[in-house]
């Protein structure tokens, strides 16, 4: 029952976040479509938002009983998270289609500040490199205490404690470190790219400060994730979680980060994101070979998304999807 309620809570959280989503973008964007200023507050705009919420909540209501009656734990969580996301994504795509007739032409004028940016990622080089040093030190510690390590160690934890184990082999032990080092590398590169490879929209001073705060929050969240990976995972020291509360720490950190991101979104800043609608596939995937930026602001959700016309984006995507799979293969 606990699992079912937890799954339901996930579903509701996804619904609440997505329901509030139309507020979390520039005021001249609605469902990833550039609209005239003030359109969102107009009767037509409000009706579109209302319809989006009705669609999303209707799908959530249909999904809720299925989540409450799961055959097993795994499917319940998967259904709650993937099903919930799919429902709201469908609502978003339908709403976007309904918004397209109201689209406004994108302003062809671009403005930029003619000054170098001395801005660095939060914490500087130390924040970017220290997680690798921590992982290397921990791997070396494992090497030194190899004989004392038990023959089997846990690799997965459920609510009741460890529920999956693997044998002690060099591939399993050091493979985990390598996997987490790669994950750290992806997170920290994304943090660096958020500061150095994302477009800065020139705006009045107060708005520019807000934009800088938003950018640093995004980068800080990714750096925090890298540090959690390095310090809390892989859980090999003494065969227990290095930080027994790491998953909860991770969840708490993500929650705090999300609240901070929501508070500093672009809802008060006019001027759009200076990207053209035709480069947004389904309003979610940005593909613009003319744009040198690797990261652009998301039009659906918070933070930044990759420019999929840039080959580096595909390398990063392959790493994000492939590295955990590789880790699982190594352990098995």
């Amino acid at each position: 029952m606990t699992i079912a309620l937890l799954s339901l809570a996930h579903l509701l959280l996804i619904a609440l976040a997505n329901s509030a989503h139309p507020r979390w973008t520039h005021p001249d964007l609605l469902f990833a479509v550039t609209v005239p200023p003030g359109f969102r507050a107009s009767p037509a705009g409000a009706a579109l938002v209302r319809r989006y919420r009705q669609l999303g909540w209707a799908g959530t209501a249909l999904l809720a009983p299925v989540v409450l009656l799961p055959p097993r734990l795994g499917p319940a969580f998967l259904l709650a998270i993937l099903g919930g996301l799919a429902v709201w994504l469908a609502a978003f795509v339908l709403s976007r289609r309904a918004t397209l007739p109201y689209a406004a032409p994108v302003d062809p004028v671009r403005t930029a500040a003619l000054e170098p940016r001395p801005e660095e990622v939060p914490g500087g080089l130390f924040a970017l490199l220290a997680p690798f040093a921590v992982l290397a030190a921990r791997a070396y510690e494992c090497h030194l205490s190899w004989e004392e390590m038990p023959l089997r160690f846990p690799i997965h934890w459920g609510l009741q404690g460890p529920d999956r184990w693997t044998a002690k082999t060099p591939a399993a032990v050091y493979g985990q470190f390598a996997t987490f080092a790669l994950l750290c590398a992806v997170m920290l590169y994304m943090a660096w790219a958020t500061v150095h490879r994302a477009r800065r929209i020139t705006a009045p001073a107060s708005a520019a400060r807000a934009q800088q705060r938003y950018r640093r929050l995004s980068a800080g969240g990714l750096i925090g994730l890298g540090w959690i990976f390095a310090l809390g995972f892989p859980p090999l020291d003494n065969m227990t979680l290095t930080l027994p509360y790491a998953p909860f720490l991770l969840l708490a950190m993500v929650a705090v980060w999300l609240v901070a991101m929501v508070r500093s979104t672009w809802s008060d800043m006019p001027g759009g994101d200076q990207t053209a609608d035709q480069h947004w596939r389904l309003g979610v995937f940005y593909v613009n070979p003319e744009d040198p930026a690797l990261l652009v602001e998301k039009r659906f959700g918070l933070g930044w998304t990759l420019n999929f016309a840039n080959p580096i984006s595909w390398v990063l995507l392959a790493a994000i999807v492939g590295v955990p799979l590789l880790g699982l293969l190594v352990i098995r």
Partner: protein
Amino acid sequence: MLPPLIRIDLSIATPVYRQIVDAVRTHLVDGAFAPGDHLPPVRQLAMDLGVHFNTVAEAYRILAEEGWLDLKRRRGALVLRRGVPRPADPAAAMLFARRLRELVAEVRAAGVTRPRILRELLLVAKGLEA
């Protein structure tokens, strides 16, 4: 103090690199930059404007050829103290006069009034005297 801004219009026929050259040169002539100041690196300006790196690199190269910038440095482009060039030869002076007339004709055709053009020209002239 706000940094000098550059504006380009992707919808007009003038190539983007030429718009960048014109805008940056205007700031340089107006004294918005002192010798030793840095312009943003090519990659940064290209990303902020959403144009190809080569477009900005070409604009910087033209300005370097004109003697405004030193591109040998690693961080961006260094603004140079530009010596006053020799007075333009008669052919160049005629070209200048023709281009100015063409520009005036273009803006008049676009609906800009004569008093407005005159006002802008006087402002430019005052800037030159200063």
